[in-house]
């Protein structure tokens, strides 16, 4: 005897298979995100464009500016003759920083007096501004020290002091090269599974509602829960395939290795899947058109898993009320589990609480979805 559940799943599979465009996208989309993030996205601020106004043109001012052109953090895009030109560059955003060296710069330095330089910063992007201002300060400080050193060379030899007084030895754990792709992969897995699992599931179920074909199924002898599970099985398969695709692709393209247990990873992803699909069904029961379903799914699933999961933005840095909100976002726990497995190579004892939450979320959302699904159909 053939189960009606399997018949529904089969019908759904056939529909997806006929829809070539969707299939391509389901597999190209995760790869595109992985590659964009892997190659394109760098969080470090580099090659900040600067415009220089050197009013001094002495050996010292040239030395000082030289340090900027040698630094990997800056690129001098223009040497200008007037303050107006410098201002225009910053206004138009072609330069983020303007450096003004006053006429008496070299003279004051060689006569052991303090010289002042002016740094003009485009503060619009406050994050980049803060970081690049830090780089400017350290170049200025290093140049200052080097001048001081040459003037005190004799002094140093007499005192026998070794410099610098303190030296820091940074040890970076889990991701020693600070490669962003290593920490991005777990996040991409969580987000892609959400997009496929929730957005696609919601839109597909609502489509049957919109087109009225769901009525035909309701009038058939199939049970409600069979209908629901039959409909979500294909999407479960697609979302899980995408997860595997990202794991494999990130290994072969970017060499991202799994330090922990692969089996645990596979299980964790499987558990996460049910909450994701349940959310999709739930959204399909509260919307009536595909358009509304997609917007709701994006807001309820995609945005929180990008912004509130710690995927890009660390949770501890968020304002407290938002930290509380992140507690109900399943992606948060999933990303934590994935990072523990991927980067830290930890075992289940480090994240069993997160595992329990994910299972719990899946059960609650699935139950709610099943109840509402039944009600909206009857």
């Amino acid at each position: 005897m053939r189960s009606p559940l399997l018949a529904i799943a089969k019908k759904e599979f056939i529909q997806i298979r006929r829809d070539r465009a969707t299939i391509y996208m389901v597999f190209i989309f995760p790869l595109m995100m992985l590659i964009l993030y892997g190659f394109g996205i760098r969080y470090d601020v580099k090659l900040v464009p600067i415009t220089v106004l050197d009013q001094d043109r002495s050996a010292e001012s040239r030395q000082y500016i030289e340090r900027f052109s040698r630094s990997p953090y800056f690129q001098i895009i223009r040497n200008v003759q007037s303050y107006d030109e410098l201002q225009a560059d910053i206004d138009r955003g072609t330069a983020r920083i303007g450096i003004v060296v006053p006429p008496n710069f070299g003279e004051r330095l060689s006569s052991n007096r303090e010289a002042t330089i002016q740094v003009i910063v485009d503060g619009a992007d406050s994050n980049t501004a803060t970081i690049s201002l830090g780089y400017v300060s350290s170049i200025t400080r290093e140049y200052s020290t080097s001048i001081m050193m040459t003037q005190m060379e004799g002094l140093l030899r007499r005192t026998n002091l070794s410099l610098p007084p303190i030296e820091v030895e940074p040890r970076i754990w889990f991701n020693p090269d600070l490669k962003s792709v290593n920490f991005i992969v777990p996040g991409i897995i969580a987000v892609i599974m959400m997009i496929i699992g929730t957005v696609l599931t919601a839109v597909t179920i609502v489509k049957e509602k919109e087109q009225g074909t769901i009525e035909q199924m309701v009038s058939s002898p199939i049970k409600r829960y069979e209908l629901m599970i039959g409909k979500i099985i294909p999407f479960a398969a697609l979302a899980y395939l995408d997860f595997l695709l990202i794991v494999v692709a990130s290994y072969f393209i970017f060499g991202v290795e799994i330090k922990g247990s692969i089996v645990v990873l596979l299980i964790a992803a499987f558990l996460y899947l049910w909450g994701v699909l349940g959310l999709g069904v739930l959204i399909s029961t509260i919307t009536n058109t595909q358009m509304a379903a997609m917007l709701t799914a994006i807001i309820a699933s995609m945005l929180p898993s990008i912004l509130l999961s710690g995927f890009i933005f660390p949770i501890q840095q968020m304002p407290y009320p938002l930290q509380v909100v992140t507690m109900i976002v399943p992606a948060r726990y999933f990303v934590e589990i994935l990072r523990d497995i991927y980067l830290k190579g930890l075992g289940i004892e480090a994240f069993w609480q997160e595992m329990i939450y994910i299972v719990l979320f899946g059960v609650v959302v699935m139950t709610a979805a099943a109840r509402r699904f039944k009600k909206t159909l009857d």
Partner: protein
Amino acid sequence: MYKRTLEIIRKEFIQISRDSGLKRMVVITPILQLLLFGYVVATEIRSLRMFVLDRSHSEESRRLVERFVASGYFVIVGHTDNLDQVTNAINRDQALLGLVIPTDYAENVRRGVTAKIQLLVDGSNSNTATIALGYAGGVIAAENNDLMKANFRQRGFRLIEAGIKQEERIWFNPSLRAINYTVPGIVCLLLMEMMVPLTAFSIVKERERGTIEQLMVTPIHAGEMLLGKTLPYVLIGLFDATLIVTVGTFWFGVPIVGSVLAMYAYMTLFLSVSLGLGILIATIVATQQQAALTAQFALVPNILLSGFMFPIESMPAPVQAITHILPMRYILVIMRGVIMKGLSLAQLWDQALALAVLGTIVFSISWYRFRKVFG
């Protein structure tokens, strides 16, 4: 002629007004997004959690730790004498950094021999780790400077205090508030995120249900139909943009320096590019499902590579080249220019021109395809 277009607009609005889910999202989406981005993206990285392993137990070591706290970037979450405890704290995400001060620290500092300290950093979030290392470097540099001076003074030498003073002027956003930069960005993001899928959906919907045939047999022209189907969404887009700007101004206190009228003019220009993209998608897909995925496909690069979150100049050169075809790249410069810097068209003409050229190209292609598919 106008009447026919108006009829289509009326029909579209009736359909929208019957879709309670959609109406809800048109209002909720922008506000929720602004709040999320405003509070998540626009927060600075501060109070990084540090675990201290001080084996020196000296005045010198306490001074160093104190210096980390005083910088405002670090909070001490625990002290210990056991390295395992530091490792544990980092493993379990209780601390991001571990500061290890060795037994001979104070002695070395007093004798003027370079003292070595260790900084353990959880690198799993490379972004936060980089920033934390940068802040720590600043703290150490300041301590070094003080120690050096003190050492010289102790030995009876006077330092030559020459050197360079740095005078900083921060323009456009003197208090360096991140939200000021985020709000103009979200306006652009939302316009694209809503407009591309909504226009694509509204057209594909008719095709999927077969109602497009009914429209085609009426005397309406393709142009009138296109105008009638997209205009409602332009209005929704402008409504949402207004909502964000209003909430941004009154809730987050983001000032608008430039002309509001100019802002709307640029937004309309950008909207038409987004509409063009939506129409283009509608002509190449058959179902709303495909439209949803294709729209996401088009949106992701516009979010990640346009300079919305990360500065373009720091990206690798090939990626920088790609960014030139992203409409979002230009509107971001324009909106931030108008809202934060008060720039005029004279200063923004090249960005506006690029956007207009992109819009013309996208619209020509989509119009050509639309005529072919729906003509």
